[in-house]
C-alpha cells in the first residue's frame, strides 16, 4: 500500500555527541518519484538529512519511514535490507580507486547476491548484466575494465552513480554530487540525475550548493537552516526573498554556479 519510494520524516531530530544539532525536528513528506533539491548554508543539516534516510546517521528522536518501514537505528540485517533499496552518491565519489570500474559498480549488487559469491568475485551473470546496464545509462560502459582511479572526476562520479543504479534502488540520495566538478561536467551530471529520475521514477534527493542549479534542476526545493525546515515549495515559485530567508543573507554571485564561472 505504501510505495517503496516514499519517505516520511516525523519530528526527525539529530543531536551529535558533541552537542551539535544536525536536525532540529523535521517534518517532511516525500512522494514516490519526486526530484527534491535540498539547499541551505554550510552546517544547515543537509548531509544529516540525507544520511538519516539510510541510517548512516541515526536519529536521536522522532522517526523516518522509508516505504512505510521505520529506518532501523542499529546496524544489522534490517538496515542492510533497507539500504539495498537506497542508492547514495557522494561529493567525493567514494569509489575504490584501485579496483576496476566494473567491480566498483558491482558493489551496488553486494546486498543482492550471496556473500561467498561477492567474496570470490563470482558474480551471477544477471548481476553483471545489471551493472553493465547501469554503466551504459551514464555512458561509460567502455570504461568497465579500467582502474577506477584512472578516470577523470566527472567519470568517477558517473561510476558512483552507476553503483547507485546497480542497486536498482527506489530512492537515490545525492550529497552535493557536483561540488567537486567543473561547470560543464556539473551540468552533465545534473542532467543525468534528472533523466534517471524521469526514466526510472526513482525518488531523488539532491543536496546542492548553488542556487541557480537548485532552481534549474529541482522540481521541489527544500530549504534548511540550523537543522530546521524553513522552505518547502516548487522550484518555479521560489523567490529571492525565500533564498534570503534560507541563507540569512542576500544571495550573491558566489551562490550561483554560472555567475562564479563568469567572474
Amino acid at each position, binding site marked *: 500500500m505504501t510505495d517503496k519510494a516514499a519517505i516520511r520524516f516525523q519530528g526527525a531530530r539529530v543531536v551529535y555527541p558533541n552537542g551539535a544539532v544536525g536536525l532540529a525536528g523535521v517534518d517532511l513528506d516525500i512522494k514516490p518519484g519526486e526530484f527534491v533539491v535540498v539547499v541551505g548554508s554550510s552546517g544547515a543539516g543537509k548531509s544529516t538529512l540525507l544520511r538519516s534516510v*539510510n541510517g*548512516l546517521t541515526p536519529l536521536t528522536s522522532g522517526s523516518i519511514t522509508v516505504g512505510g518501514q521505520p529506518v532501523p537505528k542499529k*546496524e544489522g540485517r534490517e538496515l*542492510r*535490507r*533497507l*539500504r*539495498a*533499496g*537506497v*542508492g*547514495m552518491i*557522494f561529493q*567525493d565519489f*567514494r*569509489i*575504490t580507486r*584501485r*579496483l576496476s570500474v566494473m*567491480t*566498483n559498480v558491482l*558493489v*551496488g549488487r*553486494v*546486498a543482492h547476491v550471496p*556473500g561467498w559469491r*561477492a*567474496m570470490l568475485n563470482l558474480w551471477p551473470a544477471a548481476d553483471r548484466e545489471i551493472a553493465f546496464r547501469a554503466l551504459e545509462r551514464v555512458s561509460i560502459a567502455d570504461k568497465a575494465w579500467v582502474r577506477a582511479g584512472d578516470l577523470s572526476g566527472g567519470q568517477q562520479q558517473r561510476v*558512483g552513480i552507476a*553503483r*547507485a543504479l546497480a*542497486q536498482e534502488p527506489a530512492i537515490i540520495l545525492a550529497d552535493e554530487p557536483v561540488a567537486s566538478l567543473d561547470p560543464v561536467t556539473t551540468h552533465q551530471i545534473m542532467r543525468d540525475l534528472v533523466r534517471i529520475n524521469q526514466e526510472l521514477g526513482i525518488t531523488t534527493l539532491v543536496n546542492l550548493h548553488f542556487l541557480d542549479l537548485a532552481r534549474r534542476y529541482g522540481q521541489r526545493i527544500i530549504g534548511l537552516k540550523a537543522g530546521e525546515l524553513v522552505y518547502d515549495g516548487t522550484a518555479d515559485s521560489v523567490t529571492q526573498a525565500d533564498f534570503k530567508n534560507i541563507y540569512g543573507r542576500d544571495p550573491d554571485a558566489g551562490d550561483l554556479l554560472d555567475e562564479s564561472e563568469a567572474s
Partner: protein
Amino acid sequence: MNEASRAAPGRPLRPARNWTLIIAAVGAVSLMTWWSARGIGFSLVELACNLPGGRRLLVESWPPDWSFFPRLLGPLLETLQIAVVGTVIGGILAIPIAVLAARNLTPGFLVWFVDRNFMNILRTLPDLFWAMLFAAAVGFGPIAGALALTVFTIAVISKLWSESLEAIDMAVPEAVRAAGGSWLAMLQFGAIPQALPHYVSYALYAFELNVRASMILGLVGAGGIGMVLETQRSTFEYPRVTLIVLSVLVLVLIIEKISESIRRRLV
C-alpha cells in the same frame, strides 16, 4: 630577548630551548651506557687485548671450503622452503588478526581487546622460543622451523598492517555500507584494497626476515642451513662455516633485491 625584538606583532614567539632537559637527557643516556657496559664487563682495553685471538679465528676461516658447497644446496633449499611455508601460512593468518585489531574496522571492543593482547603475546615471545616449543611438540626438523616462522610472521605482519588499516580513509567503506554491504563486503571492497600495497610490502619484509631467521632456528634443531652451520661450527670446520655464512649472505641479498623491485612496482 633578541627573539622578542625580532618578532612582528601577532606572530608567536619561538619557544626557548629547554637546556636543562637536554643536559639531563644526555647525562641520563651516558650514565645508563656506563652502567650497562660495566655490568656486562665490556671494556675497550680488554677488547684490544683479545684482538689477536679474533685475528687467528679469521685466518683459520679463510679461504672458504668451496668443495663443501654441493652439500649445502639441499639445506639452503630447505631453508627457503621453511621461509616460504612460514611466510605464506603466517601471512594468511595475519589478515583476520590485523583486521580485528584495527580500531576502525573491528566489530566490537571485546574482540579488539582479546586480539590486541593475543598479538602482543605473540610479539613478546622471541622466534627462538617458538622454535624450541614446536621442536618439542613435533620433533626437531623443518616442520618445527616452519611453524615457528608462521607465528613470527603473524606477529610481524599483523602489528604493522593493523596500523596501516587504522590509517585508511573510511569514506569508501562507508559507501559500501550505504549500498547495503555487510561487514565483510565493507572490508573487501572498501577497506582492504586501500591497504593492499602495505600488506604485500610487509609480507615481503617478513619473508626476508624469515630467510635470515631460519639460519638461527637451525641452531636449535629446526631444520635448514642453520643445522649444518651448527654441526660444522661445533667441529671447528671454520672454512666451511665461512662458506655457509657467505652463501646465506648471498641468498639474503638476492631475496632483498627481488622483493625491493616488487615493492617499488607497487607504489
